[in-house]
């Protein structure tokens, strides 16, 4: 290691003139006040996106009044117009949102007794028949929340040699029951419109358990049948969008049970809802059971035997899959993709 030429223990004197501590406080508070006036609503929405806890309470304690003031001033709009060209996100607009009128088809009617049973409700393999294979997988969309990583990158690597273009579009911190950040109804519509994927791999559920707005302004709390009904209805709308009237295949991964008991309860409700949601589209929507693979008998485990050797498959947070776990999930998804697409078979 070459020696440095100057004595490292003589700290560089900061440049610029010296001011008073009061000036430092004035400077920081002046910046803070300006930001509250301009970005107050953003601070409020940032707080709303956070999980419940002290942090959220503190941010909302600042964000709510700041947002109220910012809403009444024209500054936020002006700032948005000036900085809009810098935003890396596409604006989610148009039809398909969870709050808009339901689209036509089975998704709109739900799984009630009046819902029509069509050919789409049957997976050919369940009937002992050969599945209808699509000719070519050109575009694969891997999406979801943080659970979709690193599954997305591993899948992309495995199919890169087959000429498949993989679109990785994970939206961290989002959820079907958390549509104040991302409305997955809108997002799925936009993803399909922009990418026209032949296959969609969906792995989501790390941020679920939030209440849904119910009839008469009341909240539908997790995780009873009523909550599962709303979750399944939303998931079904997304499946309907992704399957592109039968032109695409959807691979929806269920949740491996998390380590913590409260999260397990949510995961069970989510998994039950996914299974119900997929029923009308069994010929195109594959529900891939990760719970059984990683947490058989409903018991959490961090490690499992892989190739005869005990291997850690979960991240230390007890929720996500690590690289080794994602590798297993990738293998399962690839198996189904190969069965569905001639170009991969």
């Amino acid at each position, binding site marked *: *290691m*070459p*020696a*440095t030429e100057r004595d*490292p*223990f003589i700290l*560089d*004197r*900061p*440049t*610029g*003139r*010296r*001011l*008073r*501590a*009061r*000036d*430092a406080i*004035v*400077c*920081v*508070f*002046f*910046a*803070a006040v*300006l*930001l509250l006036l*301009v*970005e107050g609503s*953003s601070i409020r929405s*940032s707080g709303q996106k956070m999980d419940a806890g002290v*942090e959220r309470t*503190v*941010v909302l304690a*600042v964000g709510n009044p700041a947002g109220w003031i910012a809403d009444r001033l024209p500054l936020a709009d002006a700032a948005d117009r000036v*900085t*809009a060209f810098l*935003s*890396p996100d596409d604006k989610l607009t148009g039809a398909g949102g969870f709050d808009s009128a339901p689209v036509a088809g089975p998704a709109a009617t739900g799984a009630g007794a009046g819902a029509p049973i069509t050919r789409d409700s049957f997976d050919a393999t369940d009937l002992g028949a050969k599945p209808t294979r699509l000719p070519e997988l050109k575009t694969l969309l891997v999406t979801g929340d943080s659970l979709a990583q690193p599954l997305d*990158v591993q899948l*992309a*690597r495995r199919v*890169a040699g087959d000429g498949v*273009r993989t679109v*990785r579009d994970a*939206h*961290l*911190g989002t959820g079907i029951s958390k549509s104040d950040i*991302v409305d997955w109804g809108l997002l799925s519509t936009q993803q399909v419109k922009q990418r026209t994927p032949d296959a969609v791999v969906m792995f989501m559920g790390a941020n679920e358990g939030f209440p849904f707005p119910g009839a008469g302004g009341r909240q539908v709390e997790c995780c009873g049948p009523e909550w599962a009904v709303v979750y399944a209805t939303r998931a079904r709308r997304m499946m309907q969008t992704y399957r592109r009237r039968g032109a695409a295949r959807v691979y929806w991964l269920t949740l491996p049970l998390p380590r913590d008991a409260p999260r397990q309860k949510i995961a069970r409700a989510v998994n039950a809802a996914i299974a119900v949601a997929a029923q009308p589209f069994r010929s195109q929507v594959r529900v891939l059971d990760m719970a059984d693979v990683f947490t058989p008998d409903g018991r959490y485990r*961090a*490690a499992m035997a892989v190739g005869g*050797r*005990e*291997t*850690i498959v*979960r991240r*230390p947070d007890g929720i996500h899959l*690590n*690289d080794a776990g994602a590798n297993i999930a990738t293998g399962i998804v690839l198996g189904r993709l190969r069965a569905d697409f001639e170009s991969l078979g």
Partner: protein
Amino acid sequence: MVFPTVQFAVFFPIVLALSWALMRRQSIWKPFVLAASYLFYSVASPTFCILLAGVTLGNQAAAQAIHRSDDARLRKRIVAAAVTADLLALGVFKYYGFFATEVNGALDGVGLGLPLPLAAIALPVGISFIVFQAISYTVDVYRGLLPPAKTIDVGLYLSFFPHLVAGPIVRAREFIPQLQSPRDPRKVAVGAGVALIVIGLVKKVAVADFLAREIVDPVFGVPQAYAAPDVLLASYAYAVQIFCDFSGYTDIAIGLALLMGFVFPQNFDRPYRAASFGEFWRRWHMTLSRFLRDFLYIPLGGNRKGKLKTVRNLMITMVLGGLWHGAAWGFVLWGTIHGVALVVEHQFRGRVRLPRWLAWLLVFHIVVLAWIPFRAPDLGLAGDYVSRLAHWGPATLWSVPVVLVTFLVIALQLAPARPLDALRVRFERLHPAALGASMATVIMFVAATVSSQGVPPFIYFSF
């Protein structure tokens, strides 16, 4: 807690105001800043605070015992035990999984079924920085360079939130003396602090995260899907990303500390203008370089025991320096490449003289090449990545902003420093309200570049 977040924007003004309000009453100021720093750290995980407190108390106990003892052998044993305990903490949390997997794999390969128990251990944020600073305190006390400090001062030194999670690695004898008396409220480098915070935010959010999103993450994630032009540009872009990410963090940390009245050492000095590897390491992560020099290279004998031992010492230092970044073979390879480059440079010093531009070109491209195993998820993918450089094809990710940002940052490092420094000094002289307005404007523009995913963590948080 991450600097460029709403949470920190709420946290910092309150802490800054209270810190200066309490500054004259050190008996209240110290517990207050200590509590604020632990609160800052607890956002990552409250349980990590137990480790931080444990490292603090353990090293303080060792320092006290060293100071009390007149027996040289006993003092040596105590310092050895303290450093071992520090490294053990680092080893368990950072390297155990890697070690167990590699050992199990090796034993399995020769048919021995003696697997080490596996455990999914969470990596405490910034543990490498905390442990190195703790070692610096205990060893400086052992060497007689610093008397043992009060426990609360040691606690503050290790937990002070501006440098807690990703440095710079501040030495105990740089920081603890600053705690001996209240900071002077009439001499605060407000302009310099704000300038650094603004520059750091732009580097991190507008440059590093932009390049990561647009080219680096896609190409390093699936190199097989891209041809040579994209792979080449991604290599340069990653060199820029990691510089802007890490030096951006450091700039913000130094700036925040200045506003609170504290001075931290510099950590970066335009590293990509280096025309030798020795120079590169005097410009890149300077506080790590000097730590490795003072606590590893020189104790090993440095360059005073002949050519062969100098080579050995350089290689040990650089390989361990690589491993310090994380438990992966990619970091080891990165350290090895730099070690070999330093050895070669050492051997040819004075014998071969290249024109400066040629030396720069060579050094810069070896540095860029060495970043590939550092960034790639594993060595196999690093190999795939390099092999894609031979596959010519379309440039799918080249865009004007990506190319412009990448080469502008490199060009700025090569440009003379004086005009830019003069610009910064002019900024620093602004009225406090104008400084605040400038900071708010920059934050507003920088915030507009953040995607709905939020600000990704700093790369060095995981080291």
